[in-house]
């Protein structure tokens, strides 16, 4: 098959990529295979470790409260097998007669040091309960998924309302942060103006003061504006720079983009805003996606700001709702895990979708030389 014929059917950009990919990995040398193998091995090992919290969370969400902390821990939700006899619910076990013989299913009636009182489990052949050694008896368990935990968790509090609130706040905040942070970072990275370096340090410095001490004065400011118990304290700061973290990140990214792009556009009569909007932003796709993901996750899971500024239950967000399952002394762990899994799903969806935009910027290849 003539590779050129293949290429001619695609767009120039894709063809360019295709050629590069083929030229780099066309030769499947031993070295390449070994590297690939090592990479996969490392990734699989790492995945196993990094997946653990998620697996634990999901598996706990299907267990009953008393089985979550059993030791040894099992990922599969299991529970003791029981049967009814004479109106009582008794645990089932497997009894292996010490003198040899097939293991039989027995009911456990009672216990005393080192011994258990067992009775044959089939109702067909009634036998007298007898005492046997504890070691010969193994309690039986079965797999049971407590899916009702999810329904119970969702109805324990008005989670539908919380979801709508959180969606609204998060979408507003993403828009605000992406737009305003990229705008402000442009000033720090691409323009020269008096006081720029000082303000940059000042901006970084806003991250250095622990928020525990600024919580009260900030609360007072919002109180004087009358914004308590509204979404405004959660949304407005996102439009005003969106936080030093994102501005700093954008700025670092802008600085990696060559100035020649700016200058070429300038010569063509483009305004600063045009350079920002038409030239730099499109090149920032990876960082834009990253920031959008961070912003989404941050606001989706933020519970401190909603806790402080929202009073009425109908304004609460999902993160606050999750705390409905945590008390001073006890935690409804099974419900908390079920609710947490549900709350996590949109984050995963957003992340997986965002992956599509993690593409290398190819446009640069045309500029140099």
């Amino acid at each position, binding site marked *: 098959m003539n590779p050129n014929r293949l290429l001619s059917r695609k767009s120039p950009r894709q063809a360019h990529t295709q050629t590069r990919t083929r030229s780099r990995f066309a030769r499947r040398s031993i070295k390449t295979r070994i590297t690939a193998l090592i990479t996969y091995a490392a990734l699989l090992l790492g995945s196993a470790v990094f997946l653990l919290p998620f697996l634990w969370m999901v598996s706990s969400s299907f267990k*009953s*409260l*008393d089985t*979550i*902390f*059993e*030791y040894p821990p099992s990922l599969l939700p299991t529970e*003791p097998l029981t049967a009814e006899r004479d109106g009582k*619910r008794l*645990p089932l076990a497997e009894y292996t007669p010490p003198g040899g013989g097939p293991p039989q299913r027995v009911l456990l009636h*009672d*216990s*005393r*040091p080192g011994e258990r009182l067992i009775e044959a489990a089939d109702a067909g052949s009634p036998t007298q309960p007898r005492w046997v050694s504890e070691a010969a008896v193994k309690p039986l368990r079965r797999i049971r998924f407590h899916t009702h935990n999810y329904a119970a968790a969702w109805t*324990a*509090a008005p989670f539908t309302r919380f979801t709508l609130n959180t969606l*609204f706040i998060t979408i*507003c905040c993403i*828009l605000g942060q992406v737009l305003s942070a990229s705008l402000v970072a442009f000033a720090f990275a691409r323009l020269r103006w008096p006081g720029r370096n000082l303000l940059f340090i000042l901006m970084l410095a806003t991250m250095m003061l622990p928020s525990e001490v600024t*919580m*009260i004065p900030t*609360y*007072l400011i919002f*109180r004087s504006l*009358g*914004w*308590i*118990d*509204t*979404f*405004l304290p959660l*949304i407005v700061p996102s439009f005003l720079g969106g936080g030093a973290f994102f501005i700093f990140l954008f700025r670092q990214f802008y600085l990696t983009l060559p100035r020649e792009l700016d200058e070429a556009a300038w010569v063509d009569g483009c*305004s*600063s*805003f*045009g350079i920002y*909007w038409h030239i730099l932003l499109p090149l920032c796709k990876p960082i834009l996606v990253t920031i959008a993901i961070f912003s989404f996750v941050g606001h989706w899971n933020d*519970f*401190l700001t909603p*806790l*402080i500024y929202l*009073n*009425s*239950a109908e*304004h*609460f967000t999902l993160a*606050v709702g999750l*705390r*409905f*399952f*945590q*008390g*001073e*002394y*006890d935690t*409804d762990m099974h*419900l908390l895990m079920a609710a947490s899994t549900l709350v996590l799903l949109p984050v995963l969806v957003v992340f997986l979708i965002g992956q599509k935009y993690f593409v290398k910027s190819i446009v640069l290849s045309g500029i140099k030389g």
Partner: protein
Amino acid sequence: MAASAFIRTVPMRQRVQACAGCLLLLGLAALYGGSKPRSAAGGPVVIRSSFWGMAQDAQVWQELARRFNARQNRIRVKLEHITGQDYHAKLLAMTVGRCAPDVMAADDEPFRNLAINGLFEDLTPYLARDREFARKDFYPPFYDTFQVDGHQYALPYLGHCLLIYYNRDQRRAAGLSPDPKPDWTWDDFTHDAIALTRDLDGDGKTDQFGMNQLSWFYCLQWIWSAGGRDMDTAMTHYLFDTPEARRGFQFHYDQIHKYHVCPRASELPNMNWEAMFLTGKVSMFFTGSWWLVQCRQAKNIDWDIAPLPRGPVTRATRSTTEGLTISAASRHKAEAWEWIRFVLSDEGQAVFARYGRGIPSLRHVAWQTFPDPKTPQHEERFLEAMDTYARKSSLHKHWLETARVFDREWDRVLLGKSTIDDFVRTVVPEANAIVRGEDDL
């Protein structure tokens, strides 16, 4: 300028769309998020009432508010649920911002400092005017917690005390009677705990422990049982260094390090204690009445409640409580009082009991509603304890601060790095300095 040059490059339709989108968003933000209770002239007075807790607590308060709002038109209660461990921090922020709720649920531990510093309305005149309250039979340990210098700053709506949850299957398997004697002593307890600490599979490691590890705060009942006290009546200094108090602490120290009936720090399967009891790792579990509802979810163990064992001098257990206060800055104090009266009425208290969130603070309601004849467990033992041997601890003004000092040094005791002598000799001077207010900042 630059902006207008840019705008000109954007097609008209998109410009309109962008403007409409922004306006819509801002409008939604203002409308959707902004709703504050405004008492219109002539309409019902709206009072804000805050509480903490889980979903179940929210249900309790919602039912109380629903009933209260339904039976009259003058006052509407608007509940504010503050979740997480940050109830306290948010309350302080609201206080500084002068927008604290009219009625606030108050925890006993930080209470005294808040009351002394004028956060709460003095309820004594309200109680004097309201004849009905003179006849209410609040449990004294709950009621007295909220009293400062003869003035009542909060009224308890709920309380707890500590008893022992024990595993009857494991007692039988260990050759003991399924239930301990109701008047058992420290020696009986030690004997049972030793019998219940077993290596079940013969691998040399203890699989089942007789009891759980106690913090210094959970050792107060041993101090009282030994005839000691935590502080003097005026709460000016700690009395941990008396021989009786030391004896109380030593009782638990021996349980950890001498008899090994509770796990050492390194033997902790790092699950929480509740889980250890439910999975059979711990046979006797010291906790409060708050855990009844959750424990009932365990279908696999045969358990019951035991009174605390009698010590060398007496029998004692510790109680804790939660109360309702009126904010000193509230503008609707009379209405707030109406709401509190309702919560503390028989009807209101019965709601708490039905959800099993704790012991109702009114004794006659507690005896009517708290024991559950349908369950085999003897939860009335909590009420018996409240009647006879429950005490409140000394929650002085700087309690949270001294508690941290005790936590730190008790960690060393649990690790086996300090003896009770070391513990007492270190913490008492430090704690007394804090109580005296020597650190003026």
